[in-house]
């Protein structure tokens, strides 16, 4: 994401690059937190009114709430306190649930992580199968495959979810319409989350596999009598998976925003559904909490991928020798 590591110059340069990359990640996370603070501060409406809700507010109560929240302090102090609380894992207080945002998100995180993992694995598996079956094969197969990828990539997740739900839950009653906690309740949401991603993954994998099949090692494997499918599975696949790493940022993003839609469609527990309802209720601390947490997750994933890429790239090892 952040440009390629230096082509030559050894370990010192690599370390310099990693340090710079780390510093950048800190800047980005700090920026995201500041944006969240600005959002809370700029939001129209009096936070006191939002917390107390429809009850009559006596001036004394209002003053006490303002004091509790530190709303009368200078802005710089409030900003400092906000960052300090973030560092200690305090994301603020939900207006709606009158509980700490961290607790609200903590309760829901497992369901969303489960959904995201299942969706990601399904998309990956489907894309690998599609790529192995169609990359470098007959023209009509490739054309059919790219048509499927186009349709999947153009399908809005909320609609796919509705269609699946209507057919498989209501009409044929194969899967529960409401998740009862079992594995069968996870199937439809995970498929819905996976479908649009599958389209993109399959396209990237197929093109990358077609390039790798023209490499000398493919020729030598064929010369040794390897079958076409074995060649793809045993030799080509591991080269093919590398470009997916550069997509990891995009993947995290689509999993998170996909979760908002999918959890709403399937009335599932999770951070996505909490986010959607917090937006409608203008429960800003929850929204900013979600945004800050996902910005941190996103930045850490990107950092790990970039650094892992720099360390794993054999061409870089070559230059370090």
């Amino acid at each position, binding site marked *: 994401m952040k440009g390629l590591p230096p082509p030559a110059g050894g370990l010192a340069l690599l370390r310099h690059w990693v340090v710079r990359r780390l510093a950048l990640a800190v800047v980005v996370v700090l920026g995201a937190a500041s944006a969240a603070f600005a959002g809370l501060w700029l939001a129209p409406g009096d936070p006191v009114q939002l917390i107390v809700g429809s009850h009559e507010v006596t001036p004394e109560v209002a003053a006490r709430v303002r004091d509790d929240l530190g709303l009368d302090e200078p802005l710089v102090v409030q900003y400092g306190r906000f960052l300090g609380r973030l560092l200690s894992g305090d994301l603020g207080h939900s207006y709606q649930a009158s509980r700490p945002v961290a607790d609200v998100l903590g309760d829901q995180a497992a369901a969303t992580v489960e959904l995201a993992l299942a969706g990601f694995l399904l998309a990956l598996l489907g894309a690998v199968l599609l790529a192995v079956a169609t990359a470098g094969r007959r023209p009509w197969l490739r054309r059919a495959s790219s048509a499927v990828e186009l349709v999947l990539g153009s399908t809005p997740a909320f609609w796919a979810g509705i269609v699946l739900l209507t057919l498989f839950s209501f009409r044929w009653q194969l899967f529960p319409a409401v998740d009862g906690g079992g594995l069968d309740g996870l199937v439809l949401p995970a498929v819905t989350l996976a479908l649009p991603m599958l389209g993109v993954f399959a396209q990237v994998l197929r093109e990358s596999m077609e390039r790798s099949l023209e490499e000398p090692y493919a020729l030598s494997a064929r010369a040794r009598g390897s079958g076409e499918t074995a060649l793809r599975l045993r030799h080509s696949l591991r080269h093919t998976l590398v470009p997916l790493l550069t997509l990891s940022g995009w993947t995290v*993003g689509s999993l998170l925003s996909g979760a908002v839609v999918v959890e709403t469609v399937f009335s599932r527990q999770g951070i996505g559904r909490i986010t959607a309802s917090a937006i409608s209720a203008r429960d800003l601390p929850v929204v900013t909490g979600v*945004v800050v947490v996902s910005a941190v997750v996103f930045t850490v994933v990107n950092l790990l991928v970039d650094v892992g890429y720099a360390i794993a790239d054999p061409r870089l090892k070559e230059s370090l020798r």
Partner: protein
Amino acid sequence: MSVPALVPSRTPRTARPAVAALATLRRIPLGPLLAWAVLVLLAVAALTPGLLAPQPPNAVDPVNALAPPGSEHLLGTDQLGRDVYSRLVHGTRDSLVVGLGATGLALGAGALLGVLAATARAVVDEVLMRLTDILLAFPGLLLALLVIALLGPGTGHATLAIGLSMLPGFVRLARAQALLVGRADYVHHAVGFGQPRWTARLRHVVPNALPPLVVFATLSIAGAVIAGASLSFLGLGPQPPDPEWGAMLAEGRGQFEDAWALALGPGVAVLLTAAALTVVGRDLQRRLEGRHGHGRR
């Protein structure tokens, strides 16, 4: 030594016109043609919906609620007895406005900021690019959701929110393009021949940096249309009773077993729009790469 023709010519003279016709037929880009046809149809639906669907989209008729597709109502009616086909056609405008508006916003602002970053002093460049990095840290739709949480739902806010979440990509591409083109010989020559730097930028850098941006924008519209429909499905886009594809699906929830056209119509509309835009975008990309002589295929 003459080699006798052992094998007669495979294609007899008479078959040639047919072969040639088949070859020509194959050369016609069927995908892009179809995609353009869909886009023209969408443009007509967005500009003059009454031409395609004379029935009013918001006319409530409770007696005929959830009527099946038929001659009176082409795709049946929804839970309030409103004509589904008419609402689909009339919903085109709002659905496209969010996608096109957001992309236009991102393209305009992104090109401006990107060229500024590439040509201004290093400090400005650094600040702009770090701000872009921060925007990039809000993955997927989350930035758009934050903006809507702040501003409240609505067509304009949804457009702004999606445009903002698309902005970083455009800024980066515009900056890279401006740097690339700014280094080209013809720009140096123009300056060397006495053209003022700003004139050179406007006359040579901008036109040559623009095509990849336009292709990127075309490819981005599909995603923006899907994002817009998703937001309005969540109730954060155009507000009822205005017909919009995502909102139609949200309103019709629970009725889909009785009225399949209500569930299929809006989804197919989004799917066709996004697919057509992607095909046209890829076609433009291929042509552009061909023109610069480094096509991938």
